[in-house]
């Protein structure tokens, strides 16, 4: 029994040599995506254009702008002094200038853009700089906001983004290859060999899922290595991290194989696995822990396997929230079990009934 299983597994591994380019893309695409996005992820430091003038308040304002930032991280503003007069085009969407025309000194922020997110970001930064001036003028009447951050230093967005992509990588590695291999069995009629094989369907399916799972784990490890290279970030327990990759790889394998069994054609199976991969990723805490977004997003995210994978990896990478680690892993494996059950039912329905009909 075990020997047959191993022979089948070996056969699955041999299939790799016939589909090397597919494996290469499925394994490295998430790492490539992470590497490119790592450079364009939002940075807390914004360039702020300030119109040069001889008014003393401008000098004070620029000094305050340089002071706004994290005491355990980056500065939030890089003031750039430019020659500018009212009516001139607005450089890079926004300019700050001092107005004394009404007899009262005000700082005016003139926007060239109407993107509410950018307006918010520029506004908050200027308010922070102007508030520093106000605080100084108030002296001991000024209210101090004592900052107690959760972690000893502000962690780069890239670390969270990378760890949230690791489950995506495992899912993509397993699901794309699974969809492709299984659909091609139908397209090239090699599926008949499996139907006629004198071994149980459970053994055939489990070797396929296991082999896909390994592909998913490798894809996740590759992304993890990229994350380490960028930020020297490593999980506190490799065993738990591998369990996450195993579960996500298994879910990906079930989705890819299941879709291909149902659709029996490569391109439609690819469209559906692609859609599920990116939907699960975005809805499963791709840009921040779902609890932080609340509302409908958080409610829907509870039904996404990535949410629990991300929660577990968050605990492992940040060293906080260990209490939730166990329950997140259990939830993740519940998803994996549902996936296995689903693909088994599809397999029985599609392969065995189809085989009976043809015979």
């Amino acid at each position, binding site marked *: 029994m075990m020997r047959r299983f191993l022979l089948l597994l070996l056969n699955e591994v041999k299939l790799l040599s016939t589909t090397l*380019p597919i494996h*290469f*893309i499925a394994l490295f*695409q998430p790492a490539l995506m992470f590497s*490119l*996005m790592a450079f*364009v992820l939002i*940075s*807390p430091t914004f360039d702020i254009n300030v119109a040069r003038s001889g008014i003393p*308040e401008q000098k004070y*304002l620029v000094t305050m702008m340089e002071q706004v930032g*994290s005491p*355990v*991280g*980056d500065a939030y503003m890089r003031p750039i002094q430019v020659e500018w007069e009212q009516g001139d085009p607005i450089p890079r*969407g926004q300019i700050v200038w001092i107005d004394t025309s009404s007899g009262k*000194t*005000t*700082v*005016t922020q003139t926007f*060239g*853009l*109407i*993107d*509410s*997110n*950018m*307006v*918010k970001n520029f506004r*908050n*930064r200027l*308010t*922070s700089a*102007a*508030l520093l*001036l*106000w605080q100084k*003028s108030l002296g*001991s009447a*000024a*209210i*101090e*906001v*004592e900052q*107690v*951050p*959760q972690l000893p230093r*502000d*962690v780069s*967005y890239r670390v*969270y983004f990378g760890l949230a992509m690791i489950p995506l990588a495992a899912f993509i590695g397993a699901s794309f290859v699974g969809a492709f291999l299984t659909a091609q069995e139908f397209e090239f009629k090699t599926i008949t060999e499996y139907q006629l094989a004198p071994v149980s369907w459970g053994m055939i399916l489990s070797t396929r899922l296991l082999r896909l799972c390994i592909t998913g784990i490798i894809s996740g490890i590759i992304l993890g290595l990229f994350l380490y290279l960028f930020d020297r970030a490593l999980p506190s327990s490799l065993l738990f991290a591998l369990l996450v990759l195993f579960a996500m790889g298994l879910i990906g394998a079930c989705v890819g194989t299941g879709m291909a069994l149902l659709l029996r*054609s490569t391109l439609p199976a690819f*469209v559906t696995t692609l*859609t599920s991969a*990116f939907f699960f990723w*975005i809805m499963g805490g791709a840009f921040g822990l779902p609890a*932080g*977004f609340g*509302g409908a997003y958080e409610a829907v995210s509870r039904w996404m396997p990535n949410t629990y994978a991300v929660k577990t990896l968050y605990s492992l990478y940040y060293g906080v929230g260990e209490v*939730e680690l166990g329950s997140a892993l259990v939830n993740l494996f519940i998803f994996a079990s549902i996936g296995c059950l689903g693909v088994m039912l599809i397999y029985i329905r599609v392969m065995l009934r189809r085989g009976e009909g043809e015979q």
Partner: protein
Amino acid sequence: MKRFWILFRTELLAWRRDPITALGGIIPPSLILIAFSLLFGGRLSFNIAVVNHDAGHYGDILRDTFNEVISPLNDVPYYSVLDMAESEALAAYQSHEVDGVWVIPADFSARIESADNPKITMYFSNYIDDRAKNHRIYSSEILWAFYERIGMPEPPLGVEEEYPLPVMIDWVPIIAVGIALLSASLGSIFNMYALTYKEQISGVTLEFGLAPRSLFWVWTPKILLATIFGLISSTAFLVVVKLWLGFWPGRFLIAAWVLLGLVCLFWIGLAVVIGMHSRNYMAGALAVVLGAIIIFFIGGGMGLVRFHSEEVLKIAWLFPNTHAIDPLRDLILFHTWPIDWSRTLLTLISFAALSLTIGISMSSRGVRRSG
């Protein structure tokens, strides 16, 4: 011409057999839009707990101030405040149910009245530097408004704002236009593959290779149909955007189609090279589709490019999507003619021409050589 229509009709019928692939430009983008709408379209306030121990009335005023300071993003308060006991609040904070906790001490009012260094404690999560930044700079907005409410002496510098238009556009519509462009790209790519896949698995490429006529008759209907489907996909997606978010290009629809169509032609050029080479067909398809998705993320799909061109990766400028995205936003969201229309048009035509020339010549040579 008769030959062209025969081939065109044959290709058109191929869609019936594979409707899911034909909808490859609609299904993934629609789900991505739903995901982003849930993520960024809801109430984007930070959930925080406020623990008010203050014996005086300033603590209550500060508590009320949280609800009154409105963010330009989605026009909601920066903070969504829950009143909790301190232990409950800190437990919720540790489990990320709230993003921060503000603790107002018992002597807060007394210290304000005596100008004796009043203090508040702000606990906040900093697992992402950008979220920590928001906590810090949002707290400035709260404090500014609080000072104004309690009648502190005037600030040395007043703050004012000027906008070019009376309305602002939220983040989700900005992303939605990026997804519309992705929809056009994926629509054309998937349909080009749908139109060439049958040839691959049935070995029809050999017949193409032996055809006595120019291969122009093979490519043209495929390119035309893939472009049409790219445009249909993005237009269908724009209808969803209109119904959901209320944005539609209106009288600028044809201009938007021109930009979308040229982007489609670029991706078709890439797809056709791989579509006619059987050896690495699916790997190529995978690479092109995933490439288009990566370009969505790095080529301005989630934010304006024009004002941040220095931060856009050089590699992203090698794809037409990055050049087309902001002019498309001008047409769809702002109903204004893009200031860089002529330059954009020329750039996109160059991209499309180059891609199609290389794509058609390489694939023709490949088909003639090996079938």
